[in-house]
């Protein structure tokens, strides 16, 4: 996500580009963040390649079933004789690269389910958190009470209920990620905003008679960006974690596109025949989540050092 920034802002000013590069270069100050970034970029790259090329068609039953890794099928085949390597690569797409809109038209928008879900949680959470923190009083109490209730909900139960309430689909998963993520984002934004709100520049804006919305979104929000970015990174990791779990439980992203979680689930049933089948998708999920966590962790450490 940060890597996308410089290209987006090239047009405005050269100093912006430099600024963006400065922001990114602190990633490389930290070894942990660099390792994390490399893992994440690896999966992004694999996903992008899979849009154009995979060793075999991911959904075609071309081979013998439940093969261990061999020279034709680098990672073996699954219970229907499909090539695991191809399915693994394609599995990146729904998580990171594309979202299938509901309806028969088969419209696909860029940006994976995990990314849109976290984006939704950020928008809703930031809005609620800012209002709760800045307006305070009754606003704060009622918003926080509702969010507290949502937090008390075991997330998995909320997922289960939401997903069973609607038909399986990418958008439903995005909705579920938004609903379960928003309270956390709101709490974070609120705590950041409560601190920022005490700064004198907010008093200065108030004594200019600025509108509440201006103060919240123009004066407070930009100064909370750093921690929110780090948090968002962790949340993307957690969303991938969750998508995998839902897939594993058989209520995640709908077929036919391969999904890592359901790949693990299917391979598990044949674990005695081919123990190798569960490993690639399991490692994929774990490594991507770990990569995002490492990246976020390193970034946070560098940001605090930078601020000192």
């Amino acid at each position: 996500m940060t890597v996308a920034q410089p290209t987006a802002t090239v047009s405005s000013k050269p100093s912006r580009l430099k600024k963006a590069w400065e922001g990114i270069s602190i990633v490389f100050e930290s070894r942990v963040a660099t390792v994390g970034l490399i893992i994440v970029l690896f999966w992004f790259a694999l996903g992008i390649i899979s849009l154009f090329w995979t060793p075999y068609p991911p959904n075609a039953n071309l081979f013998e079933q439940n093969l261990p890794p061999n020279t034709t099928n680098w990672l073996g085949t699954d219970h229907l004789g499909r090539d695991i390597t191809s399915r693994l690569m394609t599995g990146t797409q729904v998580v990171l690269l594309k979202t299938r809109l509901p309806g028969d038209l088969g419209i696909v928008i860029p940006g994976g389910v995990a990314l849109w879900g976290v984006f939704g949680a950020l928008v809703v959470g930031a809005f609620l958190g800012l209002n709760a923190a800045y307006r305070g009083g009754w606003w704060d109490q009622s918003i926080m009470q509702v969010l507290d209730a949502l937090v008390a909900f075991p997330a998995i139960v909320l997922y289960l209920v939401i997903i069973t309430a609607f038909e399986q689909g990418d958008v439903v998963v995005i909705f579920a990620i938004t609903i379960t993520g928003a309270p956390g984002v709101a709490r974070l934004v609120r705590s950041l905003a409560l601190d920022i709100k005490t700064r004198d520049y907010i008093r200065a804006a108030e004594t200019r008679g600025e509108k509440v919305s201006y103060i919240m979104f123009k004066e407070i929000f930009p100064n909370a960006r750093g921690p929110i970015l780090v948090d968002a990174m962790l949340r993307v990791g957690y969303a991938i974690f969750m998508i995998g779990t839902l897939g594993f439980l058989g209520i995640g992203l709908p077929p036919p596109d391969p999904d890592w979680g359901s790949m693990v689930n299917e391979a598990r049933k044949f674990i005695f025949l081919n123990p190798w089948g569960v490993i690639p998708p399991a490692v994929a999920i774990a490594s991507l989540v770990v990569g995002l966590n490492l990246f976020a962790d390193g970034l946070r450490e560098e940001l605090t050092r930078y601020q000192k």
Partner: protein
Amino acid sequence: MAEAAMDWTVNKNLSDAGPVLKIEEVAVAYKVRHGEIVAVQNVSFEIKRGESYGIVGESGCGKSTVAWAIVNFLGANGYVKAGSIKFLGQDLVGKTGEELRKLRGDQIAMVYQDPMQALNPSMKLGDQMKEVLTVHRGMSDADAAKRCIEMLDRVYMPDAANVMKRYPHQISGGQQQRVVIAMALLNNPALLIMDEPTTALDVTVEAAVLDLIAELRRDFDTAIMYITHNLGVVARVCNRVGVMYAGEMVERGTVEQIFKKPQHPYTQGLMRCVPKLGADKASSMLYPIIGRVPPPRNRPIGCIFNPRCDYTQDRCIEERPQLRDMPNGVSVRCHFAGEIDPAQWTPPEELKLPSISGGDGDNGEAEPILTVNGLKKYYPVQGSSLKDLLGRGPKRYVKAVEDATFSVKKGKTLGIVGESGCGKSTLIKTLIGLEESTAGEAQFLGFDITGDLSTRNKQLIQELQMVFQNPDSTMNPSYSVGQQIGRPMIRFGTVPKNQVRDEVIKLLQAMRLGENYYDRLPRQLSGGEKQRVGIARALASSPNVVLCDEPVSALDVSVQAAILNLLLDVQAESGTTMIFIAHDLSVVRFFSDDVAVMYLGQIMEIGPADAIYAPPYHPYTEALLSAVPIPDPTIQQKHIRLEGNVPSAISPPSGCRFHTRCPRRHLLPNNGKICEEELPPWREIGDGHRIFCHIPLETLRTFDPIITQKEED
């Protein structure tokens, strides 16, 4: 107690010979990612038993680093790069952690700036104190407790035995500092390091703690290393002093010599920056030091002070001077020490000084622009009992401002002084509309301003603007300087959009900041520069009245002088009316035409500045003035100390709010019973000077002035 008595003698015998602490050519460096930073270098001084040695300098000069080097607490990446630190003859550099640990807290003790931070919030004070004795001396718990209580009594802690059972948050800041000092003294250390121990405290509390330190030094015969930025404090508690600048010690000697005849240009500059108590803007000037302290990476090759010095010559740029002993016993790090006569100093060309249009003559004739009558601000508070929770308990309020009545004349400055929690900030927040007033009247140019900002129209908002205290939070870190100054112009539409940039640059220039500051971000600015931008932002909507909330209190003295000059300049040029809040009485006196003194939400005395600072005064004003540390060891200051703590504003004392602490109520019949029962009358002295006190004017007039010149020996 036999044990403890023995301890005292043991420590005493150890060191009758040499100095307690002897620091020679010490350099301290920090390892960072790319190389290392030398924070402190060439520092040498020594402290003898019973002596109090002051280390002064502005922030970033390495004062505290020296202290941390002595106790070898420089963090994971800091180390003593050169020199020796001899404590009672043994070199501390190179000692093992365990050897040092045994010295720390036993022979060397330390007291730091913020007592609340220094005490463990989840341990009882008694436990925190006792362990110093049980760990270092192996005392039994009961003996240790006994000795702790004695020590607490010694530092005049009321109800010492009870305090032992309390947690830090349950006692006041002044009391916390007493606990920390008592803890430091428990083992009767040979060396006591104090790092800005009173900076976080209010002036009357500070005075009491300084008295205590002076007294303890006499009684315990301890060597004290006293670090502070405040020249007044040094003058009060130290007998010798070292001045630090950018990691070096530039001058050292006895307090009398340094203050009487400072020889290093930096020391001279520092003295010129601080307003003397009683000095005002009409009769005196502040001369800031140009430039700023160079960061450790960019220190000049020659004399570190040369870029800012008024006497720089080629030699200063090329060659770093050594500390030289002068005939009067002072050592100075300057090539030309002894040749420079501060009396001959004239302000350099580039130092733009404010042009004050003679303060006298138009007094009283200007119209009041802002009138406040009986203004009150109460905050409701919720009690903690179940009854209160259900809304059944009696409604209670913090009475933050009570019956404020005053007026400000056009183009003049009203100063408001008082200790923290006296309601001065609430008062101006109410005026500017950040808070809604509870009762009373307030009018600005004939418009009612008792409501908060939502009740005011744009023009009214535009006419009242504010300058804030903390330079680090006054600017939004996300926007450039230009955007932030331009915003009020766009918001109020005072400047057409296409001219905003030009106007901002004009303002920047008026603030002595160049055009190149337009695109800078706040983190690229120094504290003083941020404060200038803050002022520019307040002025951008060309307001009639600017409210200044402690605009200089977070700044170093040399920067403080520059900002004060800038504000004076603004006022002289555009006739802006100001309300100026500060806790520093000298600054308020210097800057203001009229002064109001507040205590616990109540204005106690108000009038022309010169009248406030001379008798007759309110007993509280008198106590405040006698507490101010004055950077002049030759003067004699009246000694009045307030007892107890400031009462809670939720249930302020009946009658006169000051009666619980008033040192003068005994002058009234019945030991001032009336003070407890009735609100005092306003006693008019004339020229707008009013005192809120039961004591008759005739008696008040008999009080001596606070400051008298000491007789020369």
